């Protein structure tokens, strides 16, 4: 396979994300015509579907030999292969989007040999961009600034402080769209355990509604840990590169799994800093049960 020009892929992804951003910010979203997926809270809008079509068409025109995995065109049974694959979520944070809550992002990733290699996470409402290429660092760019040039910052935003003990951590969690059975119970019991006085007594738990932006907040150092199960490769692929290049790492949300694939659907993301392994072990010690999702 010829060497892929990753910088070119990265730059093209940013270009199309910025262009399609306006489509998202000007939409008046409702779930009316598009509806819901597995239950009344797993939402999808016409904008999700339209944006994915625009992005996938542009990517396919420029890179016709690359594979593609997008949220709105995924079919159960589709598998991630070693081939260079664009992994894409047109609107991560659809529930926020439906409520006009501007914490949403376009998440564009490229995986090669199933490993996240290029990642772009772009919030079109705030015009903030997180971007990374493997081995080339991670950056946050603000396009809305009083200066003539966008402001570009290297991640993490501050020299990392030690991670341990877990009780000093701010942790991102999401309740998700699964609302019954084992995995919901694991989440709900673990959230309580993490925060309880007789549990982790962590600084706080934050639920903001976008997996991609959560990964990036952890990369930036604004939060310390993100624990998640049930979301998909397209929610995390791009943020994975950003986090890794900022010194962070991703392990399994279930205790003991030091390795997890981008399509594993169970993730414990931790920022860079001294004590990374220790804080992972401490976290795993508080998980109540095991997730079934991801197999």
């Amino acid at each position: 396979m010829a060497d892929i020009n990753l910088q070119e892929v990265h730059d093209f992804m940013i270009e199309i994300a910025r262009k399609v951003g306006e489509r998202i910010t000007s939409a008046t979203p409702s779930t009316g015509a598009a509806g819901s997926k597995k239950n009344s809270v797993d939402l999808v809008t016409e904008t999700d579907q339209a944006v994915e079509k625009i992005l996938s068409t542009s990517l396919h025109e420029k890179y016709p030999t690359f594979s593609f995995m997008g949220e709105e065109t995924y079919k159960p049974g589709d598998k991630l292969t070693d081939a260079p694959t664009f992994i894409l979520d047109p609107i991560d944070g659809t529930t926020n989007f439906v409520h006009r809550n501007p914490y949403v992002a376009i998440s564009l990733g490229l995986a090669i040999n199933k490993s996240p290699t290029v990642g772009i996470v772009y919030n079109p409402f705030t015009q903030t961009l997180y971007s990374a290429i493997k081995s080339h660092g991670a950056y946050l760019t603000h396009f809305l600034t009083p200066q003539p040039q966008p402001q570009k910052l290297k991640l993490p935003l501050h020299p990392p402080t030690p991670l341990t003990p877990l009780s000093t951590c701010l942790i991102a969690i999401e309740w998700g769209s699964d609302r019954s059975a084992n995995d919901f119970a694991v989440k709900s019991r673990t959230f309580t355990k993490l925060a309880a006085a007789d549990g982790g007594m962590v600084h706080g738990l934050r639920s903001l509604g976008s997996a991609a932006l959560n990964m990036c907040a952890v990369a930036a150092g604004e939060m310390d840990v993100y624990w998640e199960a049930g979301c998909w490769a397209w929610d995390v692929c791009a943020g994975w590169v950003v986090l890794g290049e900022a010194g962070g790492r991703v392990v399994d949300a279930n205790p003991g799994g030091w390795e997890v694939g981008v399509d594993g659907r169970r993730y414990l993301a931790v920022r860079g800093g001294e004590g990374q392994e220790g804080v992972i072990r401490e976290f795993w010690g508080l998980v109540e049960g095991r997730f079934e999702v991801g197999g």
Partner: protein
Amino acid sequence: MLRKIKDDLVDIARAAGEMMLDADPSIDHSDTKKNSSDRVTATDKAVEKMVQDRLTSTYPRFEFLGEETFKLGDKLGNMPTFVCDPIDGTLNFIHGFPNTAVSLALTIHKKPFIGVVYNPFRGDLFAAIKWQGAFLTTATGETRRLPISPVPKPLTSLNDCLVAVEWGPQREGPNWALRTSMSQQLMTSKAAGGAMVHSIRSNGSAALDFCYVAAGWIDVFWEGGCWIWDVCAGWIILEEAGGMVASANPGDWEPTLEGRLYLAVRGAKPAEQKGVVKELWDMMGERKFAY
């Protein structure tokens, strides 16, 4: 007169914002208050001092009630009173997570008349004057009336709602048990006896939660245990955006600013707002917060 006071509060809020942006919380050693999750920084105290100094020199006959100078037993009086939270969302501030704000309000006869909430990290400034509407000015300088959607979508039931619930600093005891079990119940499927809300959001700042409900980005905020300075400004911003505030405990439609029990609902038809309040109260059954 109210407009001039609001303009002064906006100026002061922006000055407070500069202080917050300049601070480096990683070296700004924070002390604990009631426990390790209830923190205060030197910046909290410095901002409150700046706010109090400026307000008492411009409005010497008005009272001042601020988080960092409050003593248990202090009560809100009928006189015009400035109510100040220098940094709402101190934990977020310490971690550099940009959802934190200065909250400034004026009360008269124990009712909020003016509110200003400013998040310098995102550049969002929320402001309202009683009977004159609520507005959001963003980082681009654009000002929009609240709610953001001029014709709010129907608020038919909790099942359609995005609900804000915070975890709070109190992590044991009956209030903690109520909070955690209600979160679960709100999320749980209807088949299993829950409300199946769209989702729960925990942002870490009560003042901003009130403002997000005013904007319509969040439908409902249910909270017990925070304080008058956390909610006073957000309250008038929410009301001026068509929203309402009931008590977090069932049955009380007239909560007080100091009551520490708040159920904030976005603008919608009054029957719809009341419907959603009753639905949440019914889920609580006989249970109540005790603060």
